[in-house]
């Protein structure tokens, strides 16, 4: 019952953004929801052989919207800790 997924993490200014191509079905729902419009199709194929997604790491604000709206939990976003806290 333990199963792990291989993620492809992109580090941006505000956080770490990870896509799991093994879960991504290429529906594009996330792209539409991204408030920064910073997502696009990737050359890495998803589980159905369709393109998965990636981000423009400079624009991503690590808001997590894409994670929220992915029906397949193929995206994980981790915000970097606020600097003052460090």
């Amino acid at each position, binding site marked *: 019952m333990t*199963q792990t997924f291989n993620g492809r*993490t992109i580090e941006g200014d505000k956080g770490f953004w*990870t896509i799991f191509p093994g879960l991504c079905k*290429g529906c*594009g729902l996330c792209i539409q929801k991204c408030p920064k419009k910073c997502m696009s199709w990737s050359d890495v194929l998803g589980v159905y052989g369709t393109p998965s997604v990636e981000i423009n790491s400079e624009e991503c604000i690590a808001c997590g919207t894409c994670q929220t709206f992915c*029906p397949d*939990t193929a995206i994980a976003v981790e915000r970097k800790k606020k600097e003052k806290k460090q």
Partner: protein
Amino acid sequence: MSVQPAMPKSWRLDTKPHKFCPGCGHGLVLKALGQAIDELGIQDRAVFGCDIGCSLLSWDFFNVDTIQTHHGRTTPVVTGMKRANPNLIGIAYMGDGGGYAIGSQHLVNAAARNERITVILVNNTQYGMTGGQMAPTTMPGQKTETSPYGRDPEKTGYPTQGPEMVAAITKEGAYVARGTVANLRQLKGFIKKALENQINGGGFSFVEALSTCPTNWRTNAEETWNFVEKEMTKYFKVGEIKVPGPRQEEGN
């Protein structure tokens, strides 16, 4: 271990990726449900019933005991379980066809009897699993396989407003709401309240979720969101419709 997907704890990992189509709202509703189960800590008491309809694809979705039953019959199966063992938290998961068409007698009577179960109904405005036929929820003008020229309300009426109907026949203790996959936080909140109502012994609880079916809608991602956010909300008002309140005595 490296970064792992942010799946609800109650999801069953080894059956993922799940079997729903790309962009299917079922995955979102089940994410909200999974989070609600996690937050309420009821994974050990919850029993999950899924209907025939695309919801059947969730028969091995959670690490929760699950029964996949017949089309429209999830409500009675879960009712039967709850009546037999009131400690269980019964969750009946179904589509708009299963709930408002073939299973509507079960829905309205379970509601009227105030069965202490939670029904979660995924409204995707048509019959997903069978390839996109008209459902009671199909929108006026919407083309489906059995309304190929668009649903004509003159001939087949307007979309069924299920939560409003359920609200009309439930009395005190019931919880009725309509959420949407376009607002997952809120949807999760509704589902959580619905489950809490059951946990507290309140009464029947019902959440309709406006959902997506890009496959049968034949929509791209943009159109998909547009349909659920702009079109569906014209007929289907999102929000809480009935919350548990003090008993209304007689005549109302």
